[in-house]
């Protein structure tokens, strides 16, 4: 063994390392291709629509898959327009829907279409039925069964049938489901068990996208790696944990950029491409970036077209008057502010013997929190104070209502706490708050809340845990108070109200285990009603019941700040739709000028 080796190795090694460090990293930008650069903050689990339940995977897979409906890109409030459907459904009652499919839609070319040597075939109504049966199939353990559960005639029975099969037995997908019929290739008839006014929103949801049976059979268990859809893009390269590259689907049907939008869109230049053929961008590239600092740095370098603003970079980007700082403007960065359909709260477990039966205690805790200060510390004012559960984005939101329980009032809170002691019949024990997060922000929020409760004379202790432990805690009803939020899937308050419906108690989505007869009656009534003034009134009634009963400390509604470079054209944030890259365009020359400086 030569003893000198390690010593010699050191400088050589360092030299190699330093040398390798030189060289450029933007050769892609010189090619003139229109490339959209995006980042991914979390792992993309798979691209099988049936199995997608997280926003990260949705935001990627939605460029490949399309559903019957989609959201209008520019119009606000959000409204649906047909996508794979030719028009809105017809049907004489609220129980039968007949969808006509848009003709000329084909699946992207893929080796799975063996009969046609890889050429993608036409989309037919049976593809929808097949996709939805896959969601119902217990063996597939789909995340999305909640969409169809107890809605379509015969589909629940189909699920039972798949559950009864023994291991090794194949599910017969030809088995008819009464409520899903395809009289011809371009007609889909859906029969419901009871009225379901939200159906169209859910048919705009990625998991309901049609899937080619050939692909599922060809790729088998690896189908999540081989998305075959009808959308504007196709998957070209996917390195897990690293990057995803998509290219334009040459056989994408003709679709055009919208010709009308909301007021102000024309002035903002969002209608410059009106009526042009979609998509514009040739290639979309996602880079996985898990930490805030590197994401911010590559955005500032121009290696991302758009980015959110991490909490601690906020002051570098935005001045106190909520305007973009001039050095950011000089780089050609623009700021867009928009509301999220989200509400965040501390929920009470109403089955807990201490907090569940003690309304003054719940009210006191709710009044102890100074929401404007909370918004300032933890979100840099990127949130709005909540007065209830429905976020301001919804048309059912009533800006007039001031909820006394949501006002910071330590004096009143201390009085209420005295009542609470009487109700409890003795001094209050320490209240435990379960927090789903062990990161810095969760810890800091915990410290803040402890301080706030201390201020009114209530002892709390924060139990920090990671998401699976937290879910365990709330699904088994063993938490006392829990920190949570909800982001709506579609613009109907029903999505929030279901969280308080007594039949949905844990492990269902009603984690408050809230039970209120009056609320239930109203919920059941409103759930079956199409949108109307009457329904809006009922929703107000329901929200008032919750505000008064205080099963949760409603904190804030989210407001998002997004930065993007001016070379990214037609960029308008959208909170419900995901397949939006097709509308966007890159001014390649402007990017080159700016980045190549």
């Amino acid at each position, binding site marked *: 063994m030569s003893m000198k080796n390690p010593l010699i190795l050191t400088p050589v*090694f360092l030299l190699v390392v330093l040398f390798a460090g030189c060289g450029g990293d933007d050769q892609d930008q010189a090619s003139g291709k229109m490339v959209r650069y995006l980042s991914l903050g979390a792992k993309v689990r798979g691209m099988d629509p049936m199995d997608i339940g997280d926003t990260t995977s949705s935001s990627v897979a939605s460029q490949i898959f399309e559903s019957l409906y989609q959201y209008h890109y520019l119009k606000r409030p959000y409204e649906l327009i047909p996508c794979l459907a030719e028009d809105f459904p017809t049907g004489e009652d609220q129980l039968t829907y007949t969808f006509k499919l848009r003709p000329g839609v084909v699946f992207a070319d893929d080796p799975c279409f063996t009969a046609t040597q890889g050429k993608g075939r036409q989309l037919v109504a049976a593809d929808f039925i097949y996709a939805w049966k896959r969601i119902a199939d217990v063996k597939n353990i789909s*995340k999305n069964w909640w969409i169809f559960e107890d809605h379509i005639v015969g589909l629940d029975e189909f699920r039972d049938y798949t*559950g009864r099969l023994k291991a090794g037995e194949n599910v017969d997908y030809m088995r008819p489901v009464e409520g899903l019929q395809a009289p011809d290739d371009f007609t889909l008839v859906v029969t419901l068990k009871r009225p379901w006014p939200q159906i169209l929103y859910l048919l705009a949801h990625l998991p309901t996208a049609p899937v080619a049976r050939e692909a599922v059979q060809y790729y088998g268990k690896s189908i999540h790696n081989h998305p075959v859809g009808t959308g504007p893009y196709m998957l070209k390269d996917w*390195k897990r944990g690293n990057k995803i590259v998509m290219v334009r689907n040459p056989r994408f049907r003709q679709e055009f950029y919208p010709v009308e939008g909301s007021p102000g869109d024309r002035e903002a230049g969002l209608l410059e491409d009106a009526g042009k053929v979609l998509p514009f961008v040739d290639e979309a590239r996602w880079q996985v*970036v*898990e930490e805030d600092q590197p994401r911010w740095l590559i955005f500032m370098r121009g290696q991302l077209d758009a980015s959110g603003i991490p909490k601690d970079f906020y002051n570098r980007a935005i001045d106190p008057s909520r305007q973009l700082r001039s050095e950011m403007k000089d780089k050609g960065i623009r700021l867009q502010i928009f509301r999220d359909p989200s509400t965040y709260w501390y929920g009470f477990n109403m089955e807990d013997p201490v907090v569940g039966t003690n309304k003054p205690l719940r009210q006191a805790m709710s009044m102890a929190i100074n929401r404007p200060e909370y918004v300032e510390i933890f979100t840099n004012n990127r949130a709005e104070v909540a007065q209830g559960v429905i976020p301001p984005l919804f048309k059912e939101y009533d800006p007039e209502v001031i909820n006394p329980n949501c006002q910071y009032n330590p004096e009143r809170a201390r009085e209420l706490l005295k009542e609470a002691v009487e109700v409890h019949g003795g001094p209050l024990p320490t209240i435990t708050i379960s927090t789903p997060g062990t990161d810095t922000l969760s810890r800091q929020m915990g410290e803040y809340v402890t301080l706030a409760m201390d201020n009114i004379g209530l002892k709390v202790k924060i139990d920090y845990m990671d*998401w699976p432990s937290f879910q365990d805690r709330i699904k088994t009803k063993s938490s006392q108070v829990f920190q949570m939020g909800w982001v709506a899937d579609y613009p109907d308050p029903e999505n929030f109200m279901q969280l308080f419906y007594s039949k949905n108690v844990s492990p269902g*989505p009603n984690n408050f285990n809230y039970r209120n007869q009056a609320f239930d009656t109203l919920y059941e009534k409103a759930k079956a009603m199409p949108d109307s003034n009457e329904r809006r009134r009922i929703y107000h009634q329901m929200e008032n019941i919750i505000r008064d009963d205080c099963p949760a400390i409603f904190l804030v509604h989210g407001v998002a700040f997004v930065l993007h470079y001016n070379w990214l054209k037609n960029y308008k944030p959208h909170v419900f739709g995901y397949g939006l890259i097709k509308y966007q365009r890159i001014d390649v020359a402007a990017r080159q000028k700016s980045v190549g400086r």
Partner: protein
Amino acid sequence: MVSYIIRRLLYAIPTILGVLLITFILFNLIPGDPSYDIAGKSASAETIAEIRRELGFDKPRFLDTEALSQGRIAAAFDSQFFNHFRNTLTLNFPRSLTSHEPIWDEIKSRAPASLTLAAPMFIGLIATSIAIALVVAFARGSWVDTILVFICVVGMSIPMLSYILFGQHYLAYELGWFPILGYESGMQAFKYIALPCLLGIASGLGSYVRFYRTVMLDEMRSDYVRTAFAKGLSSPRVLFKHVLKNAMIPIITTLVLSIPFLFLGSLLLERFFSIPGMGSYFLDAFNSRDFPVINAMVFTTSLLYVLGQLVTDICYALVDPRISLR
């Protein structure tokens, strides 16, 4: 010799079984049930129960006593405990619960990225720190020693996070010497791993130098070194010929045994520089209670560890006649 190797191999079996036992116990004690995550946020209680059944979580934990009492032996052993042992020992790793990707495929695609970063970093770290430790040991007691030890301790006290934040911001972003993040396989990789590698070396240097300094000093004080000095041999010669040579044995032992853990990668560096290695895969699996994935990783590492131990033992036996082939 052959019988020695066989005996050593047999010794590895209880260790592997022990690892399986410990993982099984831990997985059963860790709170959190992956079926909630799989079921989706609006799932009903029935859906969750169905998913638990599909995943086999409703099977008896150790032994199906009911089946046993009915005399169905095979069915009696269809329990979580025996399935865990059977599947792992036959290397029949199931698919990941969250991504449905075969675990083995994902390990194969991620381990090279981790190693591409970890291996040069490890070698660089060892080489540099041994070099410095030699200097320090040689200059024992002088001001050079004091200053270097001081620098080492200061270096040890600065958290790795600070090195990363600083390096990424100044060296990569402000000065543009390195790409900010990213990874490509093949020769391209060097461009991307250069900075994380340097930062890893810088942050690890302090404690490594201190460790090797101790090892060297131990050797310096041994009789034969004293004799060598007394014989009037020049210092560098003694240093290389005797001290380093003898210090190499404990050093190599620790090195071989830390190699299996290299493949798990460096969590922090991989996260900040977006290197698609095992670190983020592992953390992700943990955060979604993807037990099959964690199990596969633990099993693979411990297998490598046991093998590493075997190899060092056999090498010792070959080199050192004093070790009996008992």
